[in-house]
């Protein structure tokens, strides 16, 4: 079939992802051999909602040459870029640990690989995502700043399909298809880095010379598996598994001769093993009582885990005898979530009702201390449509039982949308959100030593109120401009104030964690111009982000990602049927760092660095140009194949990711700054074949 079939999913907020089965493939489209399905999103109605489909996710920004969905989200307005080496999301003044990542409705805890350099989501396995940054529907709860709701791919129930890609850092393989046509289908996606396949032989060869034996390896993988059974038009059952894992190993051993009362031949050694990741298993049943009453039931288990082992063995001669000294530390921190949710929608004339419940039991499993908490959430919402005016109001009620008591937190949500003619719509939202899990970390990196902990008396739940006013203006079918003004206040934000260590306490009553406040406000703007041949998008953010921690500083201060201006310009151009190019330019005001302003010489001590306030300095503004090109061809067997070339930071801008103060050798006592950045010109290449 030529042309396109538009499946308009614009019935209401809550039915995104809860569409009546009878309105869905496969049964009603089983005669269509090929079709392109496009969907209007709820953009005009919900402020701060962005929906990305598979194409947009694939053509998004990459991290180290690997297409990365969180990198793409970071380029949107309202999201601070964070550190260049990290894929953390900092939405409307958030701190990165306050985003709800849902993979087919299952919350994930570890969403980053390689210390945060790129995300755990395999773009081959993602069908679409909804990203909410201000107007959260009541069905979402548990995090403060954003919701990233991923919908993973299901296997085609008509024919087998697959995609294979090999890049500089990793390889991908995804396949899917019917097991029983129209009834049972599967999907499997695997991504694995292969740096260790290079380093392992290198170290084997290097160690064959004898002497010091050393080896280092790192790999990560993501595995997505799905099985979908559609016994009839009204029922669909799905079972899904996701597993993501990082593993880093270092080992060193050296043989020594020690002379005591005799000559001792000993082997000293050191080992470091780190592993972290996420496992999510879910089972879903979707049922349509009628086209106006879809039901979804989900049971899931999600476990974020991390393990670290560090050990060394050393021999010494003491009093002419050989003494063996061993030191080791093994630490692990898991968070296990067992939950279930049920959602029901009812479409009654002008009303779109939605209600549901979810329950979960969370275990925070640290070697020295374990916590368990039970949570339950109920929500109800009603969307009322009256011509140009649409109103959604609802409430979410969360109950959270921890070892020392119970918290009850009602969270009202309201959204209003009004269409002014055919080209302009105005919208506004108010949301109250609560977060019961706290990420206890002493270093701002996604490390396996970070710990999740439940709320307690000492660390009460974090809460946020956000109000947003937005608009969506489409003067023509090609041009669209939208934006919003927002103000968000946050309370009970947790920060570590203890010693600089990689091992934060896992005790949620620990005095080293303090609570503070935050506020963020600003304006997000987006503009798009689309033609069949090219698309240009501009994202601009004007923002202020502040924090108040009385234990740290007695006044409000600007937060580290208080980037006043942030601009992203993207241009995708289809040169011809075979070649497309994309260009993106990113800019943001420099991140803030804390650097000494003055120095003093103290008798008997030496020099001491002095600071005026936290995050007192702004780093140089950050900007870079990224180029990409995709060349497609047909293989001999008729499959589509692509060569993808990329060049990150094309004009070799030195954007410091960290700054140090260095003593001047020429003028002792004077200091200057030195910045360290990623290597300029990071090229990437990958080959992809679709079958």
């Amino acid at each position, binding site marked *: 079939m030529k042309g396109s079939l538009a499946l308009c999913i614009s019935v209401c907020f809550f039915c995104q992802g809860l569409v009546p089965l009878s309105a869905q493939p496969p049964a009603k489209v089983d005669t269509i051999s090929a079709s392109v399905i496009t969907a209007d999103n709820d953009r005009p109605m919900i402020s701060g909602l962005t929906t990305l489909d598979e194409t947009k996710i694939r053509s998004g920004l990459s991290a180290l040459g690997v297409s990365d969905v969180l990198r793409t989200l970071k380029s949107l307005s309202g999201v601070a870029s964070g550190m260049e080496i990290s894929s953390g999301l900092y939405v409307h003044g958030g701190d990165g640990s306050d985003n709800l990542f849902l993979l087919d409705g299952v919350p994930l805890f570890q969403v980053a690989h390689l210390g945060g350099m790129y995300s755990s989501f395999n773009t081959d396995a993602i069908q679409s995502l909804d990203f909410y940054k201000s107007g959260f529907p009541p069905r979402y709860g548990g995090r403060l700043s954003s919701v990233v709701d991923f919908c993973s791919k299901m296997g085609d129930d008509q024919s087998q399909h697959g995609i294979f890609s090999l890049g500089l850092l990793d390889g991908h393989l995804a396949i899917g298809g019917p097991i029983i046509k129209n009834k049972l289908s599967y999907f499997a996606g695997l991504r694995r880095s292969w740096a260790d396949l290079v380093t392992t032989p290198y170290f084997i060869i290097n160690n064959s010379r004898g002497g010091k034996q050393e080896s280092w390896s790192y790999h990560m993988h993501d595995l997505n598996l799905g099985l979908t059974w559609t016994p009839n038009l009204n029922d669909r059952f799905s079972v899904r598994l996701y597993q993501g894992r990082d593993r880093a190993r270092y080992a060193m051993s050296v043989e020594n001769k020690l002379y005591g009362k005799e000559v001792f031949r000993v082997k000293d050694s050191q080992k470091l093993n780190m592993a972290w990741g996420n496992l999510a298993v879910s089972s879903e049943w979707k049922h349509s009582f009628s086209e106006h009453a879809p039901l979804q039931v989900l049971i899931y288990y999600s476990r974020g885990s991390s393990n670290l082992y560090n*050990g060394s063995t050393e021999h010494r001669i003491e009093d002419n005898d050989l003494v063996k000294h061993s*030191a080791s530390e093994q630490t692990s921190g898991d968070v296990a979530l067992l939950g279930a949710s049920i959602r029901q929608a009812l479409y009654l004339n002008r009303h779109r009702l939605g209600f549901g419940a979810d329950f979960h039991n969370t275990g925070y499993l640290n070697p020295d201390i374990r916590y368990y908490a039970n949570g339950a959430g109920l929500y109800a919402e009603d969307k009322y449509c009256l011509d140009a005016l649409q109103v959604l109001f609802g409430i979410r009620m969360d109950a959270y039982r921890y070892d020392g008591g119970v918290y009850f937190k009602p969270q009202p949500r309201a959204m209003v949308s009004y269409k002014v003619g055919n080209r302009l719509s105005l919208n506004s939202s108010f949301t109250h959100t609560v977060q019961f899990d706290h990420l206890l970390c002493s270093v701002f990196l996604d490390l396996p030593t970070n710990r999740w902990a439940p709320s307690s008396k000492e660390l009460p739940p974090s809460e946020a109120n956000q109000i947003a006013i937005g608009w969506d203006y489409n003067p023509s079918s090609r041009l669209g401009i939208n934006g919003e003004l927002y103000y968000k206040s946050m309370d009970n934000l947790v920060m570590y104030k203890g010693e600089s260590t990689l091992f934060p306490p896992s005790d949620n009553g620990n005095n080293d964690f303090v609570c503070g406040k935050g506020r963020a406000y600003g304006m997000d703007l987006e503009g798009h111009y689309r033609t069949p041949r090219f698309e240009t998008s501009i994202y601009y953010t004007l923002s202020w982000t502040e924090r108040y921690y009385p234990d*740290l500083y007695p006044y409000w201060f600007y937060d580290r990602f208080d980037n006043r201006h942030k601009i992203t310009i993207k241009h995708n151009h289809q040169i011809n049927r075979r070649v497309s190019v994309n260009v993106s330019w990113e800019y943001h005001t420099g*991140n803030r760092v804390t*650097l000494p302003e003055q120095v003093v010489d103290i008798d008997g001590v030496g020099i001491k*660095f002095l600071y005026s306030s936290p995050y007192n300095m702004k780093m140089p503004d950050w900007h870079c140009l990224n180029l990409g090109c995709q060349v497609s061809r047909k293989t001999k067997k008729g499959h589509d194949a692509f060569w993808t070339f990329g060049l990150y930071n094309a004009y070799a801008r030195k954007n410091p990711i960290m700054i140090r103060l260095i003593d001047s050798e020429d003028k002792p006592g*004077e200091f*200057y700054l030195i*910045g360290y950045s990623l290597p300029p010109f990071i090229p990437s290449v990958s080959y992809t074949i679709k079958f």
Partner: protein
Amino acid sequence: MRALPISVLLLGLVIGCESYPNYPNMSTKGKLYLECFPCSGTDSTILTVSRARPVNQSKRETSWDDVLFELNVNGSPINWESCKNTSNGLRYSASTDLTRGDIVALTVHDSDNIVHVESSVPESPAFTYSREMTQEWLERYHIILETTPFAGGAQFYGAFLEARNHYLTKYPDGRTEEEYIPISVEIEISETAKGTSFSELVEERFHRISAAGKEMFVFSLGKDDPSPYEFDIMTASTHEIVEWPHPDAPTYRNTQFRLVVYKLNQRAYRFLSDLDNPVMIGAGLVPPFVANGNMKDIYGMFESLGQSSTEWLPALIVYKE
């Protein structure tokens, strides 16, 4: 040689990754820096003052003409008794006899600012101790520190062993001459029951500090630590004849010690322990909890401490004929 091309490449990459940003919004004027820790259980308070400078300026001569300090205890002014120039600033001393609950206040006037800060004298710590000679020259003090129950919060302490040499000369005619000279000795401090885990090995509990005429090891105790808390201080002592001013009159030297234990509040502990990691903070990798002190517009710390101490303890082995 085979590694040379790789080394050159890596060096090139590293050099290519470095840049030299300007220091933005740098003040050109240095602020005052002072340290003062009034204590109960002692008869004097020391104030040290220095002049900080912007990090991109080298050290230069400083004038102190425009600086004035006022000390008050419970509203009554206390005069600074002596002032001397040190290599980096000024050092004042005042006679104070403080007890728990006294309000001590300091007002600083300089050409730009008037800064006022107050502090209440906290309770003094309670402890018992025993001591022994472990070797001929080595003394071990075993201290049992009474800690109040940890209700979720950490407690902060300091400990030190002040030392002085007692010189005694006995002449044949019965005359004696005595002299006491304060000395600095090497001290080691450790937990009595030492852990072996990696985190304990990398986390030093005791931090040696020197501030405003005081030296001590500061440490924090949390609810995972035993109560009472036991720790040991090891030091070397001397007991010998050092001189023969008269053929029949030797001068004996014995080292005497005084055990001092402090109770600090968290702010003072944080300031004194100097736990900041400028590299990590500068990289933006850790929260910016920096110990600048407790005074606005100037740097430094004015905070009262609770102090308990023993008398001067005679040497365990007294050298005598």
